[in-house]
């Protein structure tokens, strides 16, 4: 099989962080004589906990106790438990790369468009410095990482947002990278998975940022016409312009437990109406109850749930 491999998607490999020879396998598409696209069948490797980085975005240095249940959680325990509190199930915010590690088959992630970066198109005061800081803090060029990946042996296009990059707000680059990810999914015939977390449109980019809502929605409209699968994974928090565009336009919406998901943030709502908000308001479980999302799954089960969904859509896509 390997001999028939086409390497057309591998031009970006020099920018790749985790690429090695085996990673290339995942981006390869096989064609049979009928011109129909088929997913490469790579045997799912054993599910095991992948090595995670030491960083937990919402854990203060030296903080030993869970911010929700206040129980002692050691760093090792946390890292071994998908960065979820073993006592109360609180899902710590994880970095985009950690999430990629947790979700994809080992060494199978091949990023694309990694070189795209924002420019201060409105000359917004202080934005240039913010971008520099965000790049340093997150180690990413922008607030989303996109690429090819295999999950449970199934080839996919994957996008993961990075909350440490300006609260993963959507500016022109995030919008463009999402659109290009859908373009590539349409080219390759792969299903697409986007893991969102975002404060909304990036205010420093003004209307350019807002228009990315329309832009991403337009691409998804085309994507749906091809009959391919789009799974959206909502993580804490997904609000504003991201929730009101690509994040909610999926065939299947999965959320992590306790994630804040909505259009307007709870503080603004409270200020506007001056009432106490209901318990669990805008949390995943609340939205499940109100019929807005399909599934709530803990982080430890995300990978298997997505693999199962990918398997069930094998016949249906293209």
């Amino acid at each position: 099989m390997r001999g028939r491999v086409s390497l057309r998607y591998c031009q970006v490999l020099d920018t790749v962080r985790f690429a090695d020879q085996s990673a290339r396998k995942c981006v390869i598409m096989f064609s049979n004589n009928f011109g129909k696209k088929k997913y490469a069948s790579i045997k799912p490797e054993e599910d095991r906990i992948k090595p995670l980085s030491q960083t937990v975005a919402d854990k203060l240095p030296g903080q030993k106790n869970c911010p929700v249940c206040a129980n002692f959680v050691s760093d090792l325990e946390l890292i071994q438990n998908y960065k979820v509190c073993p006592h109360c199930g609180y899902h710590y915010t994880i970095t985009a790369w950690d999430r990629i590690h947790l979700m994809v088959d080992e060494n199978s992630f091949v990023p694309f468009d990694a070189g795209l970066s924002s420019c201060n198109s409105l000359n917004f005061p202080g934005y240039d410095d913010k971008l520099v800081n965000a790049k340093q803090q997150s180690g990413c060029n922008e607030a989303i990482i996109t690429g090819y990946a295999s999950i449970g042996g199934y080839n996919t296009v994957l996008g993961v947002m990075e909350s440490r990059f300006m609260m993963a707000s959507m500016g022109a680059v995030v919008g463009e990278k999402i659109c290009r990810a859908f373009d590539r999914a349409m080219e390759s015939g792969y299903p697409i998975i986007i893991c969102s977390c975002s404060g909304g449109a990036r205010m420093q980019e003004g209307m350019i940022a807002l228009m990315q809502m329309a832009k991403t929605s337009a691409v998804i409209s085309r994507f749906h016409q091809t009959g391919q699968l789009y799974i959206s994974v909502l993580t804490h928090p997904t609000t504003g312009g991201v929730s009101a565009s690509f994040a909610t336009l999926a065939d299947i919406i999965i959320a992590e437990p306790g994630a804040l998901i909505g259009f307007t943030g709870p503080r603004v709502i409270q200020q506007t109406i001056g009432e106490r908000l209901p318990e669990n308001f805008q949390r995943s479980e609340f939205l499940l109850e109100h019929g807005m999302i399909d599934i709530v799954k803990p982080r430890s089960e995300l990978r298997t749930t997505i693999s199962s969904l990918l398997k069930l859509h094998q016949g249906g896509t293209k």
Partner: protein
Amino acid sequence: MIKRQFDYEDKYQQLQDKMRELLDLSETMQLDLSSEVDILNSRMEQIREDKYLNLTPWEKVLLSRHIERPTSRDYIETLCDEWIELHGDRYFGDDPAIISGIAEFNGMAVTVIGHQKGKDTKDQLLHNFGMPNPEGYRKVQRLLLQAEKFKRPVICFIDTPGAYPGIGAEERGQAWAIAQVLMTLSALAVPIISVVIGEGGSGGALALGVADRMLMLSNAVFSVASPEACASILWKDLDRVEEMANALKITAFDLADLGIADEIIREPIGGAHLDFASTAEALRKSLQINLAFLIAQDPIALVEQRYDKLRKIARLSE
């Protein structure tokens, strides 16, 4: 001290009243000041004109929110020969913050949709200050598909501070409803023209703003989020709202520069509400020209162009 209301006209009125008093006084004292008064009057008129041609972005925000500013209903009733309002989203209710229906414009049936603010406090409450709930967006969705079925062009009027930040709105999926409309608009196979007649705020406004042509009245604004929200979130300082209004690039002229607004409709000196007839007439002419052009296009090509236009909104470095 930050101005919270547009009061230039009031001040001008006071000045004119004083002048009239002076004139009356001079008459009783049998002094002929008429030539001096004429000079002063024309000088005042000149200053007023300059003022309106050089409004700051923040002044435009205030003017766009002026209580007397013409609403969507005013434009629809003036521009259309006949109009039948249609109600309800068929799921939950009818949202008075968005009015919509079928109308005859220039001898042709069109679907009209607009945010509706109120004319006075009671009316404003009735229309929820033009802030739609999800049922408003679902009504839009229904009418868009209806327009496509009957091959009617769509004219949208944008005038809202944003989607309503309320508990019910979130429970019923504000983000989902807006995203759906964005997706539908991007692929609708009939001509769409959007007119920003007042204040365009955030995603709640954009839901009527994905169009083949975006027209803006010269004092209208369109912003990623209100300057107040941006100032308090980004700078934690509401007093810097004027500076924020500058930085966000929200005026019709800024947006024409950014390639988001296609055409600017000149308002009379003093704003649309001081001479509604001439504003409406200018808008009618522009709508006629644009509509005639769009109707002549093949619907598939139209969707293609709309898509390309959206995809081009990307300011970034590769």
